[in-house]
């Protein structure tokens, strides 16, 4: 038996909400220091990442290559500021390093690179290939009868990529019950709204037709995220996809639901306003008034 203990699960909802808030503040700080990068997606997905790293995933930040860990594949690599901020919050590396995002020599590459930062499971950025990789890891685990679970975060925009559906077909055929995919359903992509660029609906029906179990949740509600991830573990005959409807830019009023914030960082002035709003939210969470 391994002597490594898994990172403790946080179950207190208030604590999880606070962590998500701190992660959002770190996202703003790292993006403004970088001077480039994506804002809306990372802010929208802060609740999902908090739920994953602080409750759902079996992992240990001190032993990123631990053989018993669950594997999290981020397919939409451009939302990596939320992954980095969450990993730093969990103790994978010092939070001060977040200021190096996208700078020469950094471990925090503009799109995540497996060889650069321990704990980053895969290199990603080009959309559409993450689910294939997650399905590959899940296939290998199933072959070796390992209990480790595989999670894959995807954007909604990359549901337009054919490769996503190649992987979906494969996972359905092979009844990969050890994989949970989470779709960052925020309805925006870099050039506009998904339903204008290339309509995805009915998205849930598409996955059902490919022999997946589908759960639809409020992706900014941590309790919903926890419940859905735990429900997915009990589904034995199919892979599961959680369509996590969330607000892009969540927590910063002028970024919310505006696709123009998909691919740009806040200016210094905008960051001051954003952080002030997040601080107000932080106080509300502390008072239980959020």
């Amino acid at each position: 038996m391994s002597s490594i203990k898994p990172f403790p699960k946080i179950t207190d909802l208030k604590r999880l909400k606070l962590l998500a808030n701190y992660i959002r503040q770190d996202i703003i700080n790292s993006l403004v220091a970088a001077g480039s990068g994506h804002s809306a997606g990372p802010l929208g997905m802060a609740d999902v990442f908090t739920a994953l790293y602080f409750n759902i995933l079996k992992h240990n930040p001190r032993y990123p290559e631990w053989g018993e860990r669950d594997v999290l594949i981020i397919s939409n690599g451009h939302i990596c500021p939320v992954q980095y901020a969450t990993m730093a919050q969990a103790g994978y590396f010092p939070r001060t390093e977040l200021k190096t995002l996208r700078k020469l020599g950094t471990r925090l590459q503009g799109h995540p690179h497996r060889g650069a930062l321990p704990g980053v499971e895969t290199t990603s950025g080009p959309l559409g290939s993450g689910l294939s990789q997650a399905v590959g890891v899940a296939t290998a685990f199933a072959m070796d009868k390992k209990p480790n679970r595989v999670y894959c975060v995807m954007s909604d925009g990359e549901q337009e990529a054919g490769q996503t559906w190649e992987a979906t077909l494969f996972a359905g055929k092979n009844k990969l019950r050890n994989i949970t995919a989470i779709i960052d359903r925020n309805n925006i992509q870099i050039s506009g709204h998904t339903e204008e660029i290339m309509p995805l609906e009915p998205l849930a029906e598409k996955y059902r037709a490919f022999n997946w179990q589908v759960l639809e949740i409020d992706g900014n509600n941590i309790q919903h995220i926890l419940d859905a991830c735990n429900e997915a573990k009990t589904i034995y005959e199919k892979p599961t996809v959680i369509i996590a409807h969330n607000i892009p830019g969540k927590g910063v009023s002028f970024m919310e639901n505006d696709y123009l914030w998909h691919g740009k960082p806040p200016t210094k002035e905008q960051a001051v306003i954003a952080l002030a709003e997040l601080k107000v939210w932080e106080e509300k969470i502390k008072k239980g008034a959020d």
Partner: protein
Amino acid sequence: MGAINPQAYLVSNLWSQDLPRVKTRDGYGKGLVQAGEKDPKVVVLCADLSESTRSEWFQKKFPERFVEVGVAEQNMASLAAGMAMAGKIVFISSYAVFSPGRNNEQIRTTISYNSWGSKPGREINVKIGGAHAGISVGPDGATHQALEDVALMRMQPGMTVLVPCDEQECEKATLAAAAYPGPVYIRFGRAEYPAFTTVKTPFKVGKMEEFRSGKDCTIIANGPLVYEALQAAEKLKKEIDCQVLNGHTVKPLDGKTLLGAVQKTRCVVTAEEHQVQGGLGGAVAEFMSEHYPVPIVKVGVRDRFGESGEPQELMKAFGLTADDIVKAVRKAVLMKRKKA
């Protein structure tokens, strides 16, 4: 006068009309089975071409380690990367036009770059078997005749590129790829070629082998053009003394052996069943121009697509025979003399 290198252990009846002709891909099939026997981590993926890539031989022996992905080469490449992350040594098998053709970006990002910078033991061990490469695919025509695959793979940092010359060497290359850390591309054709190397012929990734010694011109060939190069040297032996090197590893290129050879012969002919840009000829020209500029004449396909026809007809029509190498050698030697 040069001669066939006894240390190359080529067949004794090299020029016999009865020299058996064998499909190079059979070597891939045999190599996969052996690799699977040696290492339980070896798995094989195929995109609906298990018979023609010979990966079905592995499938029959190790059904639990064979994965059919359907006509989905992009998924196959990234899925293989995922399996490799989980500790597997993964062979992906298809035609070279599809893999590494269609799935080139997936190989770049999820295999090569994903492996880049890894600690030893954490490399992405995906081995890409590119079958039906070159024009000798024959009647299927240009859509299925990969002529740019070596260039595609050679440009990716960290990728190893192997082009074996016959069935026996393809088996060795496949086995070597399984044991070699990181991503590897193994390229082979469909047609039957003379089986002229033996079990004892040396094969090491990254090492050029001298198959024939000679002092006037160095011919570097790979794939089916190696036998043609030996034939060319034989035809020329009373006129020009040709050295023949087997350049099975296009990347990493064995610059040391190459430089040592060319410093003596001072002219080069390259020969391959691939575009002359970007393949073996390109690699040799790039290296020599920086280290020891000499005349280089390239035998290969010159910036055009293939077409339907019988393999031997096509090799002749596209200038990929021993006679074409003979002409190239005469040209290279003439250029050398003019330069002197």
